[in-house]
């Protein structure tokens, strides 16, 4: 049994799908933001996987560098999203974003 590129990429895709599901399906703003975080994490895993298994040893740590940058962007987006969630909370006293209301 080996653990190679395919396995990790499948896991990354699944994680991305879970994140997309959370973003689309849930009403709570915080959970939607969590969904985006999962998507970013999935991207990071994909980067690292390609770096480690994919295109050659010279790019191995370039993949990790890309994951690092993706993570930073994720944290930024988290901050912005949470700020918006706070505004929504201030108006409505909950985090719900309904389909009717938006």
């Amino acid at each position, binding site marked *: 049994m080996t653990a190679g590129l395919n396995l990790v990429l499948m896991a990354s895709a699944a994680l991305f799908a879970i994140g*997309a599901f959370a973003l*689309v399906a849930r009403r709570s703003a915080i959970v939607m933001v969590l969904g985006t975080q999962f998507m970013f994490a999935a991207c990071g895993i994909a980067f690292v996987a390609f770096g480690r298994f994919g295109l050659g040893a010279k790019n191995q740590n370039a993949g990790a560098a890309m994951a690092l940058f993706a993570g930073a962007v994720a944290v930024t987006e988290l901050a912005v999203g949470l700020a*918006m969630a706070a505004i*929504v909370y201030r*108006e409505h006293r909950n985090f719900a*974003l309904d*389909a*009717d*209301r*938006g």
Partner: protein
Amino acid sequence: MTLTLLAAAPKGPLDTWSPTLLALFALLLPLIALVIVLAFTIDSRRVSAWIAVIFTLAAAICALLVVAIEVAHPLHLERPATFLTFFTGQSGSAQEFTLQWGVLSDPLAAVVSFTVTLVSLLVQIYALAFMRREDGVVRFYSVLLFATFAMLGVTFSTNYFEMLLFFGLVTLSTYLMIGHWWQREEAVSAASRAFIISALGDVALLAAVAYIYFRYNELNFQALTGHYTGGRVSANGLFVMSILVFIAAAAKSAQFPLHVWLSGSAQAPAPAAALIHSAGSAVCGVYLIARAYGLFHASPRALALLAIAGGLTAVLGVLWALFQDNLKRAIAYTTMSELGLMVLALGIGAYGASIFELFTHAWPKALLFLAAGVIIRELRTERLAEMGGLWRRLRFTRWLVLIAVLAGAGIPPFSTFWSKDTILSKALALGSPLAIAVITAVTFLGAMALVRIFALVFTGETARRRRFEPDRIRDAGGRLAFTMAVLAIASLVSGIRGFRGRTDPIAFVTFPGVSLPNSHLVAADVIAAAAVLGAAVAFVVYARRVPSPAALQPVRHAMGEGLFVDRAYQLAAVGIVLPVSRAASWVETRVIDGALDLVGDSIEFVGQPRRWLGEFRIRPLLIGFFAGVVALGAIAIVLAGGIIGKSG
């Protein structure tokens, strides 16, 4: 960033100390002091001032050591200057041009840097007492440190680009110094004028840098030394290059048509004015010409330009100095004349003499400005017509000013005599009657102007003015007197040539291919005679307050206003620049600001989710988004699969 020390000097007992390392320290110490003052001690006047003084003292010691090393090295005329490369920016392959930022230490740089640091140090010590009761003391010291750093940067530049950068810093520092008392409207306008003219010079230097790089693909001074005469650039091209460099130098050193800022520099506080005139912006221009002398030397027309412009500046400056009513402005015009003399000397080929003149002129000029500060403060007036009779009252300062005036006039054995003598020797060796006449006339008139100042201030009776008690005049004491005394000693001894037979200051700074003038006895006699005669005439005329005939009044007015050159500039500015700037401002307000406002408004709209969260339907949006991603991905897969399938 790589820090490499490239020492190309032969190993000897005095070579273990690298002059470039010391030069680097001298350059960085004022900057470090500035950072410390701004970051840590900005609230404490005394600590900031003392930090500035101590660091400048250290820088002066480093500069002095550099001079000593340069003097002591037996082969100092032939040794290539050492580099300290601490940044290398490369564009492309290894054969591409590398821009090296370094510190160049050779005799020229050593002399000028020592002058700069020592004058800066003395000025700062003077300001400890002079600016004690003022606001903005920390700002003043910060500006002085910044100016010292900028000047040292110019002095130690290795290539044209670095010099351009530091020229810009010198422009800024001059503006800050002149506009220090910004509450005064005249000071602000004088500072703006100085900035504009200096910046004009910087633009010219930028053009020169671009042109030189375009033709030679090299900007380093040392690397370019042989290239000018190589014939790659035509004579016209060389002349254009030298014109551009000269414009930059003229703006900084107040040569004839770009001189109008120098009289405004009298608005600066006395210590700052002393720095500007003796070791600041005024010196930068001459230094640039000396550094780029290979360029000028390769083009005879350029040398002629230098000589003509320098001569014109020298004559005009000293003529205008004779008709000034404002004390500091009178001294400023004599500086203009001396700078013209330096440029003239460079034009006729007296390279070492010109730098020596720079060196010897700095001390009496700085001393004059510092003493002017004391005089103005005690007499509470700046006008020469209201001064007089200080000989009895300022018992210590009177001797110092006397020494400064005699030294500046060129009376033997004081400092500038020796340098002017050498310049005239070179003119005699060339046999150019015009140059001889100009130098002699400038010496005569210069002596007149300086002694006029002395006579109007010290002899006669103190003019009675309302609410002014002449008996309350006190002489300068303590630190003020100490610094002025040091400068007086320097004015006395800095002309000494041949220290123990090892170093002739004229021969210390040389340029290959330019012959050293022998000191003619004739030249010495002529200079001495001219100076003494001018001094005597001025003393007789002004000490007795001989009134000038009324018919000459319009002439006096015209001369006093500098022949209205400044007024002409202002009219031209209003007529030409103002409409252009109005058009530009319309474009900026309507077009550029409009675009930026649009961006800002849209961001503001996005930043209020309350507004649009209630209007958008997020979920369908997200679903559509992901659907689009899937569709795009499918297309990409099909295409990529097709390509990969084709290539196997």
